[in-house]
């Protein structure tokens, strides 16, 4: 294991030659990651507790937030080519500063309908700001790295993103809500109401830091001088779609993406369903940031240790295996809690819920680690060589439609099977299985297992005539 770690980090030495702009870009990503991951963990709780949204409406608006991000990403994907990296980042971060500050203070000054209308408007502004970040940061990383340092540069970016997610969850979310970090009491905390506002205000502060970094960037700094005069061939997404939608490989890709939606939507449960599920089953002062930081910790470790080993296997096999493991993780949450309580080392409901929650997170993260990096690789392998980037750009389409629908479904399921106040009723035997949160997870499990089953059933069709086999050892993360 030690050899894997040293090998992984030794390649970072090449970045000694990377410019100041490369590190500033990583700084922007890190600060934005802190703000984004801490905000997304508490967003559904904030909407319900601080703004008075019902469970259904909070699920709907988190779904709308993710939908508009995807929509705006399609639109602003090539904006850098027109207005430049620095201006794009300044616009995007300014929108985030405005919206995060607004969300953090609006509940202090407004109530009821005026508050809810303001929050809805700010969510749309925040989605536009968020949409700017990812494509512009990718373009900046490409520009500020040479051909030799590019792969390592993107590895650093991915590593820092996951470290940001751990810090955001375990330190910012838990510290502000409960006063605890990794289980240690640091101070009294702001509680589950004011804590949410403080977390959003910290996001505002992090966005200010990101703005300072972006103002220090130099626009005309190409690490690879040959790319300076390269004419951008990026096409508008709507044109791309019209170009490829009749092509057989594209239709096959869309089928594959639709088949895998059941498992991929489990990713969105992390911010749509889990925060309410955790706090309603284990108390509103539960350290949900710690629970949400387990996944990125496993991803970081797996990235270093597991990826070099699993990359030796075929892409489609890994996708099926990873999806099956991820879907299986929901079994732990769907089993009747009385059955879980029969395990000899569990004595009460609180212990049982802790056990199934942590086990699900760990198993899901392992599955994610296996199939997620191979996903992009599969998309590249089915695309005709001259249209890889078009296929990549359009691969978000099925999720674009599925995200808001999942937002609606999650809100309705939570209000029926995981409403606030269900815990005492479960503990006193007033809730049967078909009215319990476990039944809600059974519904999600049924959707998730369809993905690996469908991909296995159609494997022959999906892999027939792949334009190019995936390169062994390629890591698309």
């Amino acid at each position, binding site marked *: 294991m030690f050899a894997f770690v040293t090998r992984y980090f030794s390649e970072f030495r090449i970045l000694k030659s990377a410019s100041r702009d490369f590190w500033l870009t990583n700084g922007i990503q890190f600060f934005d990651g802190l703000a984004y991951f801490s905000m997304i963990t508490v967003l559904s709780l904030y909407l*319900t*507790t601080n*703004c008075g949204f*019902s469970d259904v*409406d909070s699920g709907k608006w988190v779904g709308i937030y993710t939908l508009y991000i995807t929509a705006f990403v399609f639109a602003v994907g090539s904006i850098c080519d027109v207005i430049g990296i620095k201006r794009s980042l300044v616009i995007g971060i300014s929108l985030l500063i405005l919206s995060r500050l607004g969300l953090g203070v609006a509940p202090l000054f407004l109530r*009821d309908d005026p508050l809810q209308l303001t929050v809805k408007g700010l969510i749309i502004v925040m989605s536009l700001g968020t949409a700017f970040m990812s494509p512009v940061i990718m373009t900046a990383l490409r520009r500020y790295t040479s051909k030799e340092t590019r792969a390592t540069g993107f590895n650093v970016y991915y590593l820092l993103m996951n470290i940001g997610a751990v810090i955001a969850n375990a330190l910012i979310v838990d510290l502000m809500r409960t006063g605890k970090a990794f289980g240690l009491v640091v101070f009294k905390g702001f509680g589950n109401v004011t804590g949410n506002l403080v977390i959003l205000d910290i996001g505002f502060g992090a966005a200010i830091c990101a703005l300072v970094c972006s103002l220090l960037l130099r626009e005309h700094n190409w690490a690879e001088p040959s790319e300076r005069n390269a004419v951008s061939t990026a096409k508008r997404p709507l044109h791309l779609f019209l170009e490829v939608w009749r092509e057989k490989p594209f239709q096959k890709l869309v089928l594959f993406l639709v088949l895998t939606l059941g498992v991929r939507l489990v990713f969105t449960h992390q911010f749509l369903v889990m925060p309410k599920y955790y706090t309603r089953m284990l108390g509103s002062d539960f350290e949900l940031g710690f629970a949400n930081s387990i996944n990125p910790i496993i991803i970081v470790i797996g990235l270093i240790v597991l990826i070099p080993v699993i990359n030796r296997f075929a892409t489609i096999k890994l996708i099926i295996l990873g999806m099956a493991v991820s879907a299986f993780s929901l079994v732990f949450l769907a089993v009747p809690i009385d059955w879980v309580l029969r395990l000899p080392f569990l004595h009460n409901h609180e212990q049982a819920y802790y056990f199934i929650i942590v086990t699900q997170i760990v198993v899901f993260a392992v599955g994610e680690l296996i199939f997620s990096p191979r996903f992009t690789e599969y998309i590249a392998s089915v695309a005709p060589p001259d249209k890889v980037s078009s296929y990549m750009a359009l691969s978000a389409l099925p999720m674009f439609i599925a995200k*808001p629908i999942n937002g609606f479904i999650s809100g*309705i399921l939570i209000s029926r099977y995981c*409403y*606030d106040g269900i815990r005492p009723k479960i503990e006193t035997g007033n809730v049967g299985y078909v009215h319990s949160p476990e039944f809600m997870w059974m519904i999600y499990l049924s959707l998730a297992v369809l993905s690996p089953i469908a991909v296995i059933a159609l494997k022959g069709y999906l892999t027939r005539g792949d334009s190019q086999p995936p390169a062994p050892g390629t890591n698309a993360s």
Partner: protein
Amino acid sequence: MTRLRDIISDGIILFAVSTAVVVVADLGFSYLKESGKTDSPMVASIDKNDLEGLREKLAKAPNAGAPDAQGRTPLAWAAYANIETAATLAETDGKRAAMITALLDKGADPNALDNDGWSPLMWAAWSGLTKSADILIQRGARCDIRDSKGHSALALAAARGFPEIVAELSTQDPAGRKSAMDAANAALSNGVIDEKTAAEIFRSLEK
């Protein structure tokens, strides 16, 4: 400039398409919706521990609020907190006690039962809201109510390990002492409460 215009027009088209998806999904799912917990503005104020907001709403409302999908009135919501940390629980109890008084002053029924037969006092007993339980008892909450599974407020407080509430309720509901004793014993053997807490509870129940 033309490209920027193209990007903006794409953005507007995609925004319109996204909004259409949301509207269609909203219409499609509308028949599945149930009244959520915070559909009542009073419950939203209770959730935020916003006493001023609750008072404003009570002043404008004709009564102390209607029950939600689970049959819980705003009074039951005010008597509920799902908190593990003792200090946070005590702080919340102080705020909720004032809210409970405001709701009772507006005419809230202290004995209104939810769909499972839980009264506001039972919610307060499970939650460990000592002051709130005290006010409810003073304002006419019955201590002898049993839910659909036979649990009393006394048994709920014993099972969760709240000795002060047990002490108060054991005098009000002597018939419930036996089941409360069983609940405390089960909680002790399952590791829900520690021996010191259990001893305090047993002392109150044996008086």
